[in-house]
């Protein structure tokens, strides 16, 4: 028991230390050779504990808790980078632990840039039909005066908003997804360019109290931008509700699976999971997927189940039920 206490205490201090390192360095630290040895010792001690303490075998709830921990650690080691390397050397199973894919719209690719920055290949390809970003509705135009007055106006074409007798009113004229002013010809007219690129903007009309009307363009990428003579600071803000990549899995030239992946809704195929990770922030032409191997995951999840069931059984049913309360009392008297 003292050995278990020592390992628990050590893991506590390691966790606190790791928290100060930041995710990237903490991951390297906890996957280093000495820490891998520590995890192995932890598993061995848990197994030895089950063998040595008869109570852990007699009480199925306690057995589930401790066996659950073994499953979690074992699954984590099996799915780690070192676990993948070991399996490749011993069993010849070549699987990419994790990496990234960059896929352009209308193209497919099977190359994965692994974490050690090597280019590896999947036995199938992933195609990107379309990538899009969805926003919460309504979008808003935020207006602030130099005196600190503040208005929030839902963006709706044709909507008019009276600000104050001092500032007059504004009208939303047009919404652009990709605002551009073509440089050809004499007339400089703003257009919503259907080509590549992303420059969301609003065309608004400000009508001053004396009836003077001026047209202004408000760009999402330039929040709060104002000229020296401007009375009002304007911000066009949209809140992203979802990133969506429409994916196809292509094997031997045939589409074998399709899925629109979003955050929280990855694609699972061929022992890998594909996650929406990033995208082309300039023009939205490509998506970046995170690819992770599913090795060890079933073992980890089985461990989680065992741990939770065991804990509820032991602490809620055994300890706190009517019979459990009597046992608790007897235990308390005995000690």
């Amino acid at each position, binding site marked *: *028991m003292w050995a*278990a*206490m020592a390992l*628990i*205490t050590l*893991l*506590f201090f390691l*966790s*606190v230390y*790791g*928290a*100060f390192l*930041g*995710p*990237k360095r*903490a*991951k390297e630290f*906890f996957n280093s050779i000495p820490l891998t040895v520590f995890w192995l010792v932890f598993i061995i001690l848990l197994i030895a504990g089950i063998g040595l303490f008869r109570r852990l075998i007699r009480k199925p709830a306690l057995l589930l808790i401790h066996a659950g921990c073994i499953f979690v650690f074992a699954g*984590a080691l099996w799915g780690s980078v070192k676990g993948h390397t070991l399996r490749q050397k011993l069993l010849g199973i070549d699987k990419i632990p*994790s990496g990234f894919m960059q896929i352009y719209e209308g193209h497919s690719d099977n190359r994965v840039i692994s974490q050690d920055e090597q280019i590896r290949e999947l036995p199938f390809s992933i195609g990107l039909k379309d990538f899009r970003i969805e926003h*919460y509705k309504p979008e808003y135009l935020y207006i602030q005066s130099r005196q600190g007055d503040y208005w929030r106006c839902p963006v709706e074409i044709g909507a008019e908003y009276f600000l104050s007798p001092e500032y007059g009113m504004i009208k939303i004229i047009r919404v652009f997804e990709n605002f551009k002013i073509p440089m050809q010809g004499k007339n400089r007219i703003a257009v919503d360019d259907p080509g590549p690129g992303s420059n969301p903007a609003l065309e608004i009309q400000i009508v001053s109290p004396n009836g003077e009307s001026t047209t202004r363009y408000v760009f999402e990428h330039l929040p709060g931008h104002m000229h020296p003579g401007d009375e009002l600071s304007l911000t066009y803000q949209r*809140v*992203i*509700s*979802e*990133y969506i990549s429409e994916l196809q899995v292509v094997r031997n030239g045939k589409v074998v699976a399709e899925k629109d992946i*979003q*955050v*929280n*809704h*990855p694609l699972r195929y061929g022992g890998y*999971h594909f*996650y929406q*990770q990033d995208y082309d922030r300039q023009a939205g032409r490509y998506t970046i997927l*995170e690819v*992770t191997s599913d090795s060890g*995951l079933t073992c*980890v*999840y089985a461990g*989680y189940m065992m*741990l*939770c069931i065991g*804990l*509820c059984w032991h*602490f*809620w049913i055994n*300890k*706190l039920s009517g019979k459990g309360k009597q046992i*608790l009392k007897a*235990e*308390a008297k*005995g*000690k």
Partner: protein
Amino acid sequence: MEIKYTIQGLLIYITIALYLLALFASIFRLKKFGHLLYFLGFIAAVVSFGYRWYHVRHVPMQNLFEVFLCLGMIYPVSLFSRYVLRIGGQTADMLIGAVVLFPAGFIFSANPLKLPPALQSWLFVPHVTVYVLSYIFMAKAAFHAVLQLLGKNPRSGDNLLPPEEATYRLTCVGFPLLTMGLVLGSVWGKRAWGDYWGWDPKELWSLASWLVYVGYLHFRYMFGKKHPRINSIWAIAGITVIVVTLLWVNLSRFFPGLHSYGATM
């Protein structure tokens, strides 16, 4: 620190006032009146939570303001502790309710925010709910640990457990919830970010707080009630690490990570 001149703010201040009045009534031995005020405070807390829900159009558990709003609904835990677990401390619960609502009323920003894509998951509500519940139970356990250290015992006629046993029993209820919070967070992390364990500071501090209670439970199994003061120190250490996990990790610049959206000041 700011005063919220909004309906939301008003509801929070009413709840705090009712909890504090209930506390004073209980201290001055007006037990029934105190309980009535406590119940009314709970109703105000539920209305406040419901109002926020209506206002933001999603279950309000997104940031620290909303989590503390949720923590303020402590009344059912008091009842459960009193009538199921035979554990007192209702007067302290009134104080805990007022204390946890204080940051929501005066410190954290109540600006409504839309749910980012990562939070749009069925795991969002169960993950936060079990954590909030476990934190309340662990806070109560720590309170009884303090009582044990101060040598306070319930009156013989109250039919309540002594503080050391109360601490243990509350931890027995809270620990599986704490574990479920950790496990659900891990499963959610896998679905959202591709990894069930990202070595994020919040994850590591959550693991650290879980390990303190693992240590407590093993220590108590080893020695039972032979070292009640050490048992109490374990429980107080547990809630200290929970406070670090809940507040310091979200608010400090030391710990940038995936859970940073939880902090809105």
